C-alpha cells in the first residue's frame, strides 16, 4: 500500500440524499455529502471563518454554505468565496453501497 489510506465509512444511506454528515476519522472531523445526483464529496468539517459545521450546510451548484455565516466553499477544490479562505478536500467514492474515503496521512 502506498501513502493513500482508504477508510470505509459505512453504508451510503446513512446520509440522506442531498444532505451531509460529519464523520470523525482518527480524531479529525470530515463532512461527507451525498449530492442529489448521487455523487459523494468530502471536505474538512470546520469552516475556517468561525468553525461552523459545514456538514449541516445547504448544498447547491457544487458548493456548500456554512450554516453560521453563509460562507461558501467549492466541494471539488475546497476554494472559498471569501478571499483567502479554503478548506481541505478528500477523495471519496461509493463502492458496493459503501462510502470509501481517501484519508491520506498528513494530507
Amino acid at each position, binding site marked *: 500500500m502506498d501513502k493513500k*489510506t*482508504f*477508510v*470505509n*465509512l*459505512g453504508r451510503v*444511506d*446513512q*446520509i*440522506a*440524499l*442531498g*444532505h451531509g*454528515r*460529519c*464523520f*470523525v*476519522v*482518527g480524531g479529525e*472531523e470530515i463532512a461527507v455529502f451525498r449530492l*442529489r445526483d448521487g455523487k459523494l464529496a468530502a471536505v474538512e*468539517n470546520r469552516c475556517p471563518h*468561525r*468553525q*461552523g*459545521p459545514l*456538514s*449541516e*450546510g*445547504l*448544498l*447547491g*451548484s457544487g*458548493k*456548500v*454554505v456554512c*450554516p*453560521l455565516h*453563509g460562507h*461558501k466553499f467549492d466541494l471539488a477544490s475546497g476554494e472559498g468565496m471569501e478571499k483567502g479562505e479554503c478548506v481541505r478536500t478528500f477523495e471519496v467514492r461509493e463502492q458496493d453501497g459503501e462510502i470509501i474515503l481517501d*484519508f491520506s496521512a498528513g494530507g
Partner: protein
Amino acid sequence: MQKRLVIIGNGMAGARAAEEILKRAPEMFKIVMFGAEPYGNYNRILLSNVLNQSQRPEEIFLNPLTWYRENGIFLYSGVKAVRIDTALRCVVGYPLPAEVNAYDFCDGLFDREAVVTEPYDHIIIATGSRPFVPPIEGQNLPGVFLFRTIDDCRRIGEFAAGCRKAVVIGGGLLGLEAARGLLTHNVEVTVVEAGGQLMHAQLDEESGQMLKRTMEAMGISVVVNSRTKRIRHDDGKITGLEFQDETSVEADMVIISAGIRPITEVAQVSGITVNKGIVCDDRMRTNVPEVFALGECVEHRGKMYGLVDPIWEQARVLADIVTGTDPQARYEGSKTATKLKVMGVDLVSVGVKEAEKPSDETVVYREPKRNIYKKVIIRDEKIHGAILLGDTGSADTLLQMFKTGQDVPANRPELFFGTVEGPALVNAADLPDHAQICNCNGVCKKEIVAAIQNDHCRSVSAVGARTKAGKGCGSCRGMIAQIIESCLGKVSYDAAEHYYVPGIPLEKSQLVAQVRAKNLKSVSAVFAAFAGGKEDADSKVGLASLLKTLWPGEYEDERDARFINDRVHANIQRDGTFSVVPRIYGGVTTPDELMRIAGVAVKYQVKMVKITGGQRIDLLGVQKPVLPLIWKELGMPSGHAYTKAFRTCKSCVGTDFCRYGLGDSIKLAQTIERRFQGVESPHKMKLATAGCPRNCSEAYVKDIGAVAIGEDKWEIYIGGAAGGTVRKGDLLCTARGHEETVRVIGRFMQYYREHAKYMERTYGFVGRVGIDVLKSVLIEDSLGICARLDARIQEAVEAYRDPWREAQEPAYEHQFAGPKRISLAEG
C-alpha cells in the same frame, strides 16, 4: 332613583356621548334617545365608501340596534324631537313621515296624533347638521340629490344606473368624495365649484390647483369660478346646469354638496340660545339648566366644527360633567385635521393653510411632476398648519406634533422626510476610511470603496456580493448607495436585486404566477423549470418558504432545501449545538410545565437556561441527537424559535390581575398563538398584545401588536420593530372583539406572506407598501381580496403540524444523527 337622560340625535355625537356616559356611570341614568333616521348609529365618515361601493351600508354601523337594548337605552328610532318643554320638563317628538329626510325641515308634515313625550332630568342635544342648499332653480327636480345619509347613498346609486353624466355642485371635501364615489357607478363626473379652487377651507391656492390636476387625472372634470344659476330640464328630466355667466354643462343627475349647516330648530323653539349654532360653554352646557349639547350643531367659543375629532373630545368633557366624574373638566376647542378619503388621492390638512403673521415661517416642498406638495407653517417653533398632498407619509408625525404642541425639529426637512436613523444622519461620503459601515458583517468604508474602484461594483447588490456589506439587516444599504454615488457619481441597479431569490431570474409576483401556472410544488421542480436544474444553495430556503405558502398541505417538502434549523427544528448556535424553546402560549406557563423543563435541563445537562425577550424559556447548548429526547420528555410543542414563521405572541397580564387593564390581553395572545403557531412567512413574525396603551408588552413595536383601548376594542399595529431597526408600528385599524382582531391579524399575515420579499421583515414591508395602501386593501377591501386572504390563512392554519412530533416519527432516516466516529485501526 335613576335620573332620566334624553339624548336628542342618534348620530355619531349622540351615540358617543351615551357611550362615554355609560363608561363612567353605567347605572346612573335611564337613557332615552331620539333618532330621526330609522337605524342604529353609523359612521357618517364612511358614507363615501358606501357610495363608491367599497363598503356595504351594514358595514359602517357603529352601534346596531341590539347595542341599545344591551345597554338599557330606549331608542325612539325614526322619531324626530321637535321641542323641549322646559316647564313640564319633557321632550316632545313626532314620528318622521316616510319619504322625508331626517335633516329636512318638516314642521308641517307630522301626524299630530302620534306625539311622543319623554320626561327628562338632563338633555343632550346632538342634532348634527344638514346639507346647505344654495338658491338654485330646479333643486327639487327628480335626479337632484344631497349627500348626507345612507338613504342618500342608496338613492344616488339607484338613479346613477340610468345616467351617463353626473354633476357635483361643490368642490369641498364631501363633494370630492361624492364625485369619486360616482365614478364607480360608471358615469362621467364633473365637479362644479363656485370659488376659484377646490377644498378652499383646507388648501392654499397652489395645492388647490394641484388637487384639481390630480382629480382630472382620475377622470373627473373640474370647473371652478362657476356659480350655478339653474338646473335645466326637459319636461322634468334633467339636461344640464346653467351658470350665472350663461355658460353650461350637460348632466343627467346633480348632487348638491355645498357645505353643511347646524340643525338648531329644536333648541330655537325651546328658548335655548342659538347664534350660528347652539351656544355652549366649556362644560358643553347651553344657557338652559340641565340642557347640554355637542357635535356639529354646537357653537363653542364662536367656532363650529364639521369633523369627528372635536366630537370625541366634547363627548368626554360632557360625560365627565354630567356624571360628576370630573367637575373640573373643560373643553377648550379642538385642533383639527382633515383627511380627504378619496381613493387614489392622499391629502391631509391641519390647522391654518396660510401664514398669518410676518413672523410665521413657511416651509414648502414641491414635486409638480408627481403632484406632490408639502407645506408646514411654523409659529414659535410649533406647527401652526400643514398641507400634505400626494404623499402623506409624514402625516401622523406632523399631526402628533401639532396636537401636542411639540417643538419642530431644527432640521426642517425631517418634518417631511422623517429622521434618517442613526449613522446615516451623516453623509457616508464624509466618513473616514476606517469607519465601519455594515455592522452586521463588519465591513468598513475602505473595503467598500475598494470594491467600487478595483472590482467595478456599481450597485448596492454588487458591493454586497463582493464585501457582504448590506447583506445582514440591510439598514446600511442607503449608506452604501451614498458611497457608490460619491465615487462614481451615480448608483446603478441590477435587475437581480429585484429577484425573489438570486438563482431564479424572476421578481416575486412573476415567480408566483409561473409557479401557480406550471403547478410546481417542490424546490427541485422550480429549479428544473427556471434554472435548467441548476440548484442554487442561496435560493433554496426562500423557494421552500414561498412554495409552502402557495401550496398549504400540498407542498412537496424536500428536506435538503431547508436550512439546518428547519431540518432539526432547533436554532443552531455558534458552537454547533442547538437551542430548545418550547411553545408557551402567550407567555403563560404552569408549575407542571416548569418542573418538566427543569427536569430535562438537569437530566441532559443543558448548558444554560435563559428567559428570552419573547417571554419564553430557552434551553441552550443541546447536541443534535439529544433534541428528540428532550422534546419527548417535555411533552410541549415547538416554540418555532428557529425559523421564518410566526414566533410568539407575548402579552401583559391584561384584565386578570392588572389594575389598568382594559382588555383581556392574555386570552387574546393565547388565541392568536394557538391559531397562527408555525405559520411560515418571508421572515419571522413576533407579536404582542397589550391590555392597555401603557404597552408593557411592547405591542407598538412588534411585527403585529394589538392594544386594548377599552370596550373590547383593539388597535392593531403592524410593521413595528425593536431590533437593529426601531420603528413604531402603523395603526391598521381598530377591531372590535377578539374574533375580529384575530381575523384582521390573519389577513395581514397572509398579505405579507404573499407579497413580501424573502427575508423582508414586516417593518420593511409595511414601510415599502405604505399603511394607506394596506388599510385600503385589508380593511376597505379595495381590491376585493379580503375573503380570499382569510380563506388562505385558514388553510395555512389547518396545515399546521407540530414539528416536534418528528421526535416520535423522524421525517427521514438519520435526521438527528450526530457525528459518526470511525476508528482508523481497522482501515
